[in-house]
């Protein structure tokens, strides 16, 4: 899951969102084991949400008859995850990066597809805010969720 150039069309935009969701599901596996109690529960819920988006995208892209990007066996972490603090930092990062892919899909979608992309962007942004609060990061919000910085 890397920051990329703006997608050129709907298939590429939604394909990008799918690769982000694959990576998010994988990352939460790493994150969850470093967390306990409520934070671990939140990580499990977030993982389930990303799985759900992933499955919906696979179905949608398959039905459209285009290329469906494949999942990878593993992903490179942006930094080592060794404790609670680094796990929370990764959770924030995963949500911010996934939000960026969904935001990039907005101009390439219309109608229900766009509403779904906005719902996904919003969910990612809200989870990023929750993780920042759990991690004690301030401010807990950013002005333009998903916008490349």
């Amino acid at each position: 899951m890397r920051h990329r150039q703006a997608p050129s069309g709907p298939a590429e935009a939604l394909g990008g969102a799918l690769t982000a969701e694959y990576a998010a599901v994988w990352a939460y596996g790493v994150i969850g084991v470093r967390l306990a109690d409520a934070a671990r529960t939140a990580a499990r819920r977030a993982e389930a949400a990303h799985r759900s988006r992933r499955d919906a995208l696979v179905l949608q892209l398959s039905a459209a008859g285009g290329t469906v990007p494949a999942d990878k066996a593993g992903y490179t972490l942006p930094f080592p995850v060794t404790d609670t603090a680094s796990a929370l930092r990764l959770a924030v990062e995963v949500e911010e990066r996934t939000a960026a892919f969904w935001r990039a899909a907005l101009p390439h979608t219309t109608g229900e597809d766009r509403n779904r992309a906005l719902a996904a962007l919003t969910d990612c942004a809200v989870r990023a805010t929750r993780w920042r609060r759990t991690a004690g990061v301030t401010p807990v919000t950013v002005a333009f969720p998903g916008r490349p910085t």
Partner: protein
Amino acid sequence: MVLTCPVARRRTTPHVRALGHSRRNLLRAGALLALGGAVAPLTGCDLLDRGDRQDQAPDPLEPLATQARELAARHRAALAADPGLAPLLTPIADAHEAHAAELAKLTGRPAASPGPSPAATTGGDRAAVLAALREAEQGGREAAAKLCAEAPVDRAALVGSIAAARATHVEALK
């Protein structure tokens, strides 16, 4: 409208009424022909008029910009009354002002006029103040989401980010 006016006027003129049918019809035909020749320039004027009206018509993003300024003003008023809320509310007020500035760039209209004075959300206890702000953010989120669904390609991403930001404000104010 323009085409029918001169003909109608002739019809009600007593002098013309006194003329024979053939003369009147001829006059009408002449008037129509003359007007027909003027159709192209008239259409040109009409197009220009429409252009002017479009310039004066409110941009669909204007209400969103106004709302952003109003939300910023509400947060500023709340933190002025209760400075202890500053760490929470200042970034949110800043975000709304940044949204208004970005929207102004898209609409080409300066965000000059500040929003109307915020409603008295400053009274009451802190929980009530935050609940009122949360409700305002929720309304703002819904409005932005609706606009995002209808937004043209070059505006969808910004409006989507604003909708998502307002959702995070609801979360932050919990």
